[in-house]
């Protein structure tokens, strides 16, 4: 049974007199422990899908089934409780945290809110989370703006795994990082997936990265699915016009690990 099933998802925005279909009748599914990439040009609706799946915005139509339940039927406390299983990592790790927060507070929040660990035990859990993402416990008291971009994205991943989710949506999570740091973060993600069987919705415009870490890929254009299938098959021999254009525009495609 699939972990997440999205059917006929539709979301449009009113822009003056005309409406823009940001997401138009999109359906896909993800299995446990799988990585599904969403790729496509800017404005193709990738972030909108991410926000819909996380219930940060509400769809106009469609269904979202998560872990066998109707995810759109949840609200209030039931929704907040279910959020433990479905997490997100944002593109800009600086914007994704309260500018006044410290690393410890950022990681303390999910543990406290969901009663995952008693107050006395939380510092130890925070240290364990930091260690799990390749940081040391001494960054805990630091302010979010006092650590590097790569460290910050590791903290974001630590926060996402704090509640033991089965699915993490990564919206351009490595795009803002420089190449060497990007490789380390991707390694960390693959390692977490292997050990905890976390599924990823991996949003990226970098087909090289998509080919390296995704099992399957969905190519979007103008809010609609242009093409989908096995990541390597699609990227090595795209059928759709947009797929061909994206592959042609990806410079380093062949130099990334085959």
């Amino acid at each position, binding site marked *: 049974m699939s972990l997440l099933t999205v059917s006929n998802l539709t979301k449009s925005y009113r822009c003056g007199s005309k409406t823009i279909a940001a997401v138009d009748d999109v359906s896909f599914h993800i299995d446990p422990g799988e990585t599904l990439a969403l790729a496509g040009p800017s404005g193709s609706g990738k972030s909108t899908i991410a926000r819909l799946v996380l219930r940060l915005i509400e769809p106009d139509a469609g269904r979202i089934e998560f872990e066998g339940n109707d995810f759109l039927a949840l609200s209030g406390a039931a929704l907040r409780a279910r959020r433990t299983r479905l997490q997100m990592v944002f593109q800009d790790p600086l914007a994704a945290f309260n500018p006044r927060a410290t690393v410890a507070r950022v990681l303390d929040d999910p543990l406290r809110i969901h009663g995952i660990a008693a107050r006395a035990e939380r510092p130890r859990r925070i240290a364990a989370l930091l260690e799990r993402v390749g940081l040391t416990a001494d960054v805990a008291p630091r302010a979010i703006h006092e650590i590097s971009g790569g460290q910050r994205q590791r903290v974001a991943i630590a*926060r996402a795994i704090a509640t033991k989710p089965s699915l993490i949506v990564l919206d351009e999570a490595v795009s803002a990082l420089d190449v060497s740091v990007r490789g380390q973060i991707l390694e960390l993600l693959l390692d977490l997936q292997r050990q905890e069987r976390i599924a990823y919705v991996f949003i990226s415009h970098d087909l090289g990265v998509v080919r390296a870490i995704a099992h399957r890929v969905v190519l979007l254009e103008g809010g609609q699915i242009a093409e989908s299938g096995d990541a390597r098959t699609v990227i090595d021999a795209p059928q759709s016009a947009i797929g061909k254009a994206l592959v042609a525009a990806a410079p380093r495609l062949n130099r990334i690990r085959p």
Partner: protein
Amino acid sequence: MSPLRCFLRTPEAVAGAILLAALIAMALSAALLFPGDPQAIAGPALLPPFQDWSLPLGTDRLGRDVLAELFHGARTSLAVGLAAAAAALAIGSVVGTLAGFAGGLVDEVLMRITDAFQTVPGFLLALAFVSVVGPSLGIVVIAIALGTWPGPARVARAEVLSIRERDYVAGARVIGMHPLAIAFREVLPNALPPVLAMSSVIVAAAILTEAALSFLGLGDPNRVTWGGMIAEGRAVLRTAPFLSIVPGIALVLTVLGVYLAGEGIVETTAVRRGLS
């Protein structure tokens, strides 16, 4: 550069800080320098200033020590000004945050209430409130805050409207934080700087409003206030103008000091934020 050095570079801010420090010193030392009731009779009535050095600023119509009254009046002015401003800022930020963060119907309702309070002149509102409920220090504070909070509420709401679209607010929702916790723990503290920047103007206005209420006889009758002193002096304005002029000057200097020091602080923090 340290914030203090930066602050002290502008002469206006220094002047404001000195005036404000003098006012605070007066308020704090009032009970020490002039123990006992400042409203008690201390000498002959209507003694002009600089005649008797035990009563340097002379006495009023009833023979009360003007200097003692001035010091005790500083306490009232400062206490009411700060308390009313704090109350207005607190109410304003809470209402503005709720309206901006919740949006929809809650926003509509709260902002219409804010409009209603803002369209009535603040001083009239304070006047009506005190005349109905009766004058006491607490009531005067509430009355002034009642007419002052809509300004901070609007500023807080505007700031919250921009902050609530940031990724970190979405992040807080994703980890399952309660909406009220997001509004007050995550959003409100980051919306405060522009609201706090209004505080100098608000404190200054609150001090003036308190003086005006006291002048009209609606201050706390058990306390000396500068507004009350001016009103007292009015009866003998031709023969003993100093009775109105002395507290008047104190009021002007206080408002000026609060305003200049406040602007200096805003300037300093703005510069520091610009640098970082």
